[in-house]
């Protein structure tokens, strides 16, 4: 098992190297180059030359690349023009919010999706079944941010049941330890702060979780329908096992394997969706920061955040692979 993990880790190296080349090339290819990007459109040629000299941009590309790589390895992506702070610092401050959001979205998608998909399959052909099929088709076709609009308009603006923007009420003066607001509230025993942060998570998490929900419902339903017709289920029934036992031990367990695969696949979707959802709900995670970076052309943030999110994505995929190796011994051999 350890060898499997180590081998997988080594296989990440070429991918990450390739990514670094891509992002390096990206910054070079920007109109006017990095100097213009940093100094703005009205920068004089002298200022640009000075900037280039200062940051070693007049050296051969290969030298520049290795310097970039050296800094990237230590997670140094330069300074944000918007915040005047190191990109990594901003990332670490914002990322916990996005983690909280995506985790809750996933809990929502899995918690609702698997039971719903299972029920739909058990009552195959019923109204619930058809509704879940139609619903999951629409769930995939709906633009995430439109769903976010609707949820916010209905539950935050019209009904006022839940907060519709931010990560926490500004009037709450909470102590920050980890920047996971809910966790911070629990650690410092500021229960109202934790509760408030949790309430702020609900609407964005539902909006973000809807597409994964639709996919999970679909896969669970299809997978249960597949498994129900397997020989071993018939055998289990034939030898007189209680229906509940067959369901629990034979159907659900086997049906969930493809579902766990799908869940791993959703990470990328969630990270992408977070950019949109966070923007609608003015939720201060990496997504909103990225969107601001687009608006203000903060290239340091864009480059650093995208590379770091890609690393996160790659690592989560690795974790999923490893957990799959644990679930299914055959995977380890390949």
């Amino acid at each position, binding site marked *: 098992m350890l060898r499997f993990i180590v081998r997988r880790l080594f296989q990440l190296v070429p991918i990450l190297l390739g990514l670094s080349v891509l992002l390096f090339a990206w910054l070079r290819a920007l109109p006017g180059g990095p100097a213009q990007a940093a100094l703005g459109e009205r920068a004089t040629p002298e200022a640009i030359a000075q900037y280039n000299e200062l940051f070693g941009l007049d050296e051969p590309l290969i030298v520049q690349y290795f310097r970039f790589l050296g800094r990237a390895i230590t997670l140094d992506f330069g300074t944000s023009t918007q915040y005047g702070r190191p990109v990594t610092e901003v990332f670490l401050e914002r990322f916990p919010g996005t983690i909280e959001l995506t985790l809750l979205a996933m809990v929502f998608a899995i918690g609702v999706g698997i039971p719903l998909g299972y029920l739909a399959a058990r009552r195959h052909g019923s109204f619930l079944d058809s509704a879940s099929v139609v619903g999951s088709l629409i769930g995939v076709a709906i633009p995430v941010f439109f769903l976010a*609009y609707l949820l916010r308009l209905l539950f935050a603006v019209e009904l006022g049941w839940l907060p519709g923007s931010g990560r926490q009420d500004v009037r709450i003066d909470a102590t920050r330890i980890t920047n996971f607001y809910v966790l911070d509230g629990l650690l410092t025993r500021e229960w109202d702060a934790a509760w408030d942060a949790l309430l702020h998570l609900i609407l964005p998490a539902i909006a973000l979780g809807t597409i994964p929900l639709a996919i999970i419902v679909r896969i669970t339903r299809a997978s249960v329908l597949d498994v129900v017709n397997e020989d071993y289920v018939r055998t289990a029934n034939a030898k007189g096992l209680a229906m509940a036992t067959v369901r629990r031990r034979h159907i659900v367990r086997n049906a969930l394997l493809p579902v766990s695969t799908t869940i791993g696949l959703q*990470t990328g979707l969630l990270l992408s969706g977070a950019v*949109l959802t966070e923007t609608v709900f003015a939720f201060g995670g990496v997504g909103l920061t990225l969107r601001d970076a687009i608006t203000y052309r903060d*290239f340091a943030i864009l480059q650093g955040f995208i590379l770091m999110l890609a690393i996160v994505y790659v690592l989560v995929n*690795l974790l999923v*692979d490893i957990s799959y190796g644990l679930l299914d011994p055959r995977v380890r051999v390949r």
Partner: protein
Amino acid sequence: MTALGDYKRERIDELAARAGQLPEGDAGLSLTRSAVRRLRRDPVAITGAVIVLVFLVVAAFAPLLAPRDPVTQYLLSEIRPGLIPGSQEGFPLGADNLGRDLLSRLIYGSRQSLLIGVVSTVLGLVVGMTLGVLAGAFGGWVDTLVMRFVDIILSIPGLLMAITVSVLLGQNQYALMIAIAVVQVPIFARLLRGSMLVQRGSDYAVAARALGVRKSRIVFGHVLPNSLSPVIVQATLSLATAIIEAAALSYLGLGDPDIARPEWGAMLANAQDFLSIRPALAVWPALCIIVVALGFTLLGERLREALDPKFRR
């Protein structure tokens, strides 16, 4: 094989592996014929096709169908803070926040939205297929090189990749199309390569080689045509994704800035500020996006079932 996103790739490869097998009972029919036969009996596929067709017709004949000009600000004088004129005589869906006719904008918008969807998918298809053919036909180091490149693109979540490309290329409709296409390239490349690998090992390909048929002829005359069905299915589904993705990029401020070309994504993005005043401004373009995406998805899913023996019923 690398550690990254194995499942994403396995799923692509699995689809590829099932390409070109004929369902039972349709022996003697070409795959296309058999698929068409099944689709024509399938109400869901027909629904999808009708939806797509209706929108294509609307897009093609927009100037004839739209009651008014989509850019003229007819009702500008009636707009007050907190009030946007709703449905009224001559303006069935009312006006937008600048007093333009919403219905006409929706009708004209179908042009731009479908165009972005189709062009970006075709672009992704052409580049992806070229890479896939290179990898699938040559194998060896070409295959390794192409697939590594594809893996790197797959290692960035789709929308983030599109954002990167979009920021690099600037804000115009071509940048938007390219950004969406880039995300699709690796999917098509992998799909075609996997499918070609399977076909290359099949009996007829071996037979052709034994008969001394030229390699290029085997690849382009035999293997490639038989490997296309999963790619065609994916392309249909991609049309839906592309239109939704375009809306997302518009929302992030990376859309087409030309106001003379209304587009659903931009209309939807723009509606956010007027949501509590007039939700219809968001609902209509969203509905158009959802219905069109649904049309392509239904068609694509059923096409897959028709072309894929695993789904025979």
